[in-house]
């Protein structure tokens, strides 16, 4: 019994790490630009495919592949910001319009990936082979790496936004664009940095996920939908609340799978989310918006 519970908690931790990486990227873009990026999951997928091409098809090794994937996701993210988000700054309906343009970007990326890489399932080798035992629950070393990496990355982003000048300028822009530009912050550069950083995060997550799950053109939509649940629970406003919510959702999901089975879990999660929203419209951890 205890063994099952520990195994469940550990698999919840793996899910939570994945969701935390996804959702924190969404949160960075949201707090800086006020844009919800629907193509976030697709960026993950682009990176996984590029990583596969570089490391498997070209044979340059996995680390090079992951780096190339992450960079290409960042690049695509910056292009999306420039072409699909920037023209609508200041528009009264910017929020709605950018939801639509990033949704269109998602379709374009997914269909392009299908045309370029085909429908055959692909998978990356693992970064570290072997398995690791945590309190008697066994997971692959690669998944353990994801679990270890997630908090480090989250802390790095947090420190970046709190301490570094560039990071602080992102927050300043998020709080008040006019004042930020008055004190000499390059607002459009801050937007590009926020989008690029968020996309790179999605890219790294995608490249790492490519060793655990199959790489398909639609591999990003399930994590994106889960990340949406996370931000509804945690609110989009603060990185800490978003990351916290990601782990809570990951563990709840693992427990629900144990308790209700694989089929009912997504339904229960969505139902839980809607109930939460009725009583806490800004999320459980989200105090203010």
């Amino acid at each position: 019994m205890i063994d099952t519970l520990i195994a469940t908690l550990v698999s919840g931790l793996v899910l939570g790490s994945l969701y935390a990486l996804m959702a924190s990227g969404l949160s960075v873009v949201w707090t800086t630009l006020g844009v919800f990026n629907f193509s976030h999951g697709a960026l993950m997928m682009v990176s996984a495919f590029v990583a596969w091409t570089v490391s498997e098809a070209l044979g340059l090794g996995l680390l090079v592949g992951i780096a190339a994937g992450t960079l290409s996701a960042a690049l695509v993210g910056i292009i999306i910001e420039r072409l699909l988000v920037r023209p609508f700054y200041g528009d009264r309906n910017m929020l709605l319009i950018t939801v639509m343009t990033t949704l269109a970007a998602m379709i374009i990326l997914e269909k392009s990936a299908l045309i370029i890489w085909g429908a055959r399932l692909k998978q990356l080798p693992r970064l570290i082979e072997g398995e690791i035992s945590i309190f008697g629950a066994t997971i692959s070393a690669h998944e353990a790496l994801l679990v270890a990496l997630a908090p480090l990355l989250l802390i790095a982003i947090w420190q970046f936004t709190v301490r570094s000048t560039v990071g602080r300028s992102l927050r300043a822009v998020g709080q008040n664009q006019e004042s930020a530009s008055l004190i000499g912050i390059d607002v459009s550069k801050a937007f590009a940095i926020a989008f690029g950083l968020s996309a790179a995060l999605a890219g790294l997550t995608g490249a790492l996920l490519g060793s655990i799950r199959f790489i398909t053109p639609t591999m990003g939509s399930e994590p994106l939908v889960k990340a949406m649940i996370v931000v509804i629970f945690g609110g989009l406003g603060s990185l800490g609340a978003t990351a916290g919510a990601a782990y809570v959702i990951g563990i709840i999901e693992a427990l629900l799978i144990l308790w209700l089975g694989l089929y009912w879990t997504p339904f229960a999660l969505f139902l839980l989310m809607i109930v939460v929203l009725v009583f806490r419209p800004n999320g459980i951890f989200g105090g203010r918006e």
Partner: protein
Amino acid sequence: METMGRYTLPVLALVVLAFVPMVVEASFTRHLFIIAFIYAIIASNWNLSLGHCGIFNFGHLTFFGVGSYTAAIAAKTYGVDPWVAILLGGPAAAVAAFLMAAPVARLKGIYVVLVTFAFGQLAMQLVLSQSDITGGAQGMVRIPYLRLGEYSFLKDYKLGYYYVALGLLVVSTIFIKLVIDSPFGKSLKAVRDSEEYAAARGVSVSRQRVMVLVLSAIFTGVAGGFYSIYLRVASPEVFGFGTLSLALSMVLIGGAGTIYGPIAAAIALTFATEALAGVRGLEEARFIVIAVAMILVLRLAPGGLLRLFEPLVPKALRQR
């Protein structure tokens, strides 16, 4: 005199559409028209909440899916007459809309997008998990078809289905027009354009939002019911990103906040995507073309393409 002018173009379009089957005998072309009419109902009703009331509703296809599965289950599992099954899609979708609207009415901005979207996912997960009722990921097949007395609608190259679909579109459009022109419709615009002012003038913002979502679901659900009965299939695909973005592009390209724009765009886009699908190598790329078109319209003609032609239409004929 002015009333005559206002209705000239739509009535003219209707007359043309009514005569199409006399000229077009090919079963496939008629099929495209039928699908276009269904999409026109989805898009124009979606526009009711998205364009006219400004609700960031991304769960509209859920109403369609609920109608589709309601009709499929009623007709196939319970042996309800297919005509009745189609109509049952309406109230079922309205109930779904009410359930969705309850949390949405209190939310703002991006959270409305997230929740309405998640509601669609919830419905899809329910369909997938209840595979003994809904057929799960495979969907339902061999759903009973329409009959009128002894006449089977499978005959005459879809002639019957064509007129049923067109009839549904006409009734749905009249319904939308009545809603828009009523005092209720004007209060929706007030909620969209200035929530605070509307509230200050005694309009209950939450109540109007719930009402418009429920109203927009009725004909969408009926269209969903017709879709299942016509194709004789119900599949969870209707809840997916693909259908959602296609219908959304129709609303946007046709012009959010207009009445006839999404209808015209639905017909144009259905034929355009089908034409692109015929070109070798473009089977998947056509979705890219539509997505790009959607972005370009948002960028260059935010009022929709139909608005671009507005200056060409004499003032008496204009209808918003």
